[in-house]
């Protein structure tokens, strides 16, 4: 794969795609494609290494055989069109709405019922264990509902008072 891939630390290092030589776009057949150093690959999967703590960094592009085509170190460093195409793919691969407000959070028979507003619209969901409310970094909370859907609260201090009061007993 040659010069386009900057090799690091020998064989086990990450192959970072050089942003200047990388172009990511959606093909006419509905698949994501990456062109790097003159070679063209179909990307069958995009995988974040840190989906919760660094969603915009360290993204692996994998081909149909689950082999690494290469890593995008930072989405923002790609050219605008490529970044846009990759973001669209990531949006699909990781649907994690951001909770902007908690309207109600009550316990019914050991199940926590959350009524929230998210950046993807209003949502009511149930959480079956307090271990599914997880502080991944100080002030950054990720919630998993009964079906395995994830919800993100990147910064609890930016929530309004009512939301914080409701959330407080759980963290």
């Amino acid at each position, binding site marked *: 794969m040659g010069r386009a891939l900057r090799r690091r630390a020998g064989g086990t290092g990450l192959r970072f795609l050089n942003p200047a030589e990388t172009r990511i776009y959606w093909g006419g057949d509905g698949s994501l494609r990456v062109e790097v150093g003159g070679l063209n690959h179909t990307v069958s999967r995009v995988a974040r290494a840190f989906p919760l703590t660094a969603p915009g960094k360290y993204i692996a592009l994998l081909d149909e055989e689950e082999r690494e085509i290469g890593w995008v170190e930072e989405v923002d460093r790609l050219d605008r069109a490529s970044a846009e195409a990759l973001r669209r793919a990531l949006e*699909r691969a990781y*649907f994690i709405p951001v909770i902007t407000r908690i309207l109600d959070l009550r316990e019914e*028979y*050991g199940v926590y019922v959350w009524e929230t507003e998210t950046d*993807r*619209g209003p949502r009511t969901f149930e959480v*079956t264990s*307090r271990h599914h409310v997880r502080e991944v970094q100080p002030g950054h909370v990720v919630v998993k509902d*009964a079906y395995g*859907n994830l919800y993100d609260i990147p910064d609890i201090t930016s929530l309004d008072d009512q939301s914080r009061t409701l959330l407080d007993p759980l963290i």
Partner: protein
Amino acid sequence: MGSEAEGFPSTFLDGDLVEQVPDSIRLELGAEEKVLVAVSGDLTPQNQYGRSWLIVTGGRLYAYGSEGDEGPTAVIPLSEVEDVEVRRFVGNDVLVVKTPDRAVEALRATKTHAPKMDRARLALLGLLHARGKREAERPVGPTVEDGGGRQVRCSKCGRVIPPWTTVCPACISRRAVIWRILQYVRPYRLLAAAGLALSILLAGVSLIPTYLLKPLVNNVKPGADVGILITLVPILLGVHALRLLLSAARQYSLSKLGERIILDLRTRLYEHLQILSMSFYDKHSTGTIMSRVLSDTGRVQGFVTWEVQQLIVDVLTLTSIGVFLFYVNWRLAVLVLTPVPVLAVATKLFSGSVRRLYRKAWTRWSNLSATLADAIPGVSVVKAFAQEGREIDRFNGKAGDIYETHLHIASLSASFFPLMGFLMSLGALMLWWVGGRQVLAGGGFTPGDLMMFIGFTWQFYGPIERLSNFSRALQEATTSAERVFEVLDMMPEVEDRRDAVTLPPVRGHLRFEHVSFAYEGGEEVLHDVSFELKPGQTLGLVGPSGAGKTTLVKLILRFYDPTEGRITLDGHDLREVRKESLRRQVGMVLQEPFLFSGSIAENIAYGRPDARPEEVIAAAKVANIHDFITTLPEGYDFEVGERGHRLSGGERQRVSIARAVLKDPRILILDEATSFVDTETESLIQEALNRLMMGRTAIVIAHRLTTVKNADKILVLEEGRIVEEGTHQQLLRNNGLYGRLCRMQAQLSVIAE
């Protein structure tokens, strides 16, 4: 419609694949088109929550991104569809329809609808299949099963069922549960009746001093006869002494009742836990089972004894004082009642917010104990990586959180109880004001009446506080009780038939006949396994992890029954013999030997507690552990600690071999007994095992192929199937998976040397 999109459409619950299509879409399709499949998702193509649709008619597939009038986002003739797949992502699934030249996202939904996506895919594939074969329309109904797994939602009320139970706690009949709890009181009904009688008596007696306030106040005044004191003071003394006795007797009888009930319940529960099949333990974690045995039973005990008795006493006290007050002076009685609603509401609000705070404190407590549970066993890692400072900071942070929360609780309680006192004083003050004027006016209402009245008022307010919190106690107790009863009601899945026979001593002729097995709700882990093992032969089981080796031996022990086929031992179908008589003749040495806390001797004799000491020592000798034991100052009385943690891995292993030796089983199961030990220990163990296997039918699960080299037969399993079968030499010649594994291990051992 909006509320349905964010909530859960009812159609999700019954698994119907022809949902009610909204009119906006229905009109577009035209009335004459027959809808074969109509499924809705809860995500739009723009990644917003909202209802989207996938609709299949006789000839075409329509994808609607919303329910508005924008029209379909994609229309694909069914004849062009080649394949349908569900792509699973984080937080959402996408149903993708493939045509020769493109892949179209036909429907998107959150994980909430994951089973429905699979059903939709199968239904679409069914349609394609039917078209390809005979152009006929096959009716599509909810024929496809849910992908196994437990029920997430209650089918009655739609609530999510908590993970620790399988019954919806909102839909259980509280009355039935309480009735069942009371059944546990029945054997002790005399004790319960005595406790109740004492409680009522005590409550009644407690009213007497207040009642006597009236004659005391009215008659003890300058110039009055001292006779009143001579009668009343001894009476009061007697009343107080009686209260002392009653109170002590009540305390004792209720405690005894509670302890008896909890003893019964715990014993019943534990007995039942021992009977339940392994599949119960697959589904529930040790923590939840322990909390059922310990805290849930405790909560039920508290409820049946104290709460119920207190409820009866409180209701009686309240009504009797109430009736009496109205009888004496109804106007004042009405005044007494005025602060009651405020008291009740305030108590409820307060207990609500205190509960919230206590939950917070509890969450933080468990965070702190989790930190400790991490850091203390891992202290050598902490020190080796020089992270003491960070661990101290982590602990301090969490401890500080607890301090803050408890301070919050303290400040809330500090203001609440005086406030309640103040409210009650207000009630009493109103009485002074209104009642005092009645006394001054000189009607029949004496100062003594007023004093008595005020005294009863204070006694009236007490029960109100308790009663306001009763519904909560009731809910907690019934939920706990339900969790306990749920376990008691569970039937073991592997149960002896009523006509099961006792397995006579066997020679050890084992046969698997077309055995298949799947764990409940899961995929098949063994497919059509057949083999025969003659008495005294050794069978080696080889294969990658997850191939089904452990499952296979669990079937021999009848931890589970095969889903298809049968297993026979000396010609007896295992399902037709008593589990106990089977297991008595099977010995097992596990991958991670499990010792119970107790002495080494007790652990060796676990399968035969009546074994004589010389037998225990002989077994230890066979297991190559005797020499080690004699070096211990306590010898065979050495306490091994919880799970045997005071012994090394190799020592535990040999103790467990000695255990199997002593049991002298006809069939022996060894699960890779020689991993994680040094070479010398390994040879000690190997020697012990060879002695143990002599003359017995043995099944050996091995990751190291040297262990099974001398086996009479080796089965190579892969994904639940037998892929190779034969002796070591035969398999090497075959040059299949076994040959490959052998070469890999040979290379490794070369490196090791």
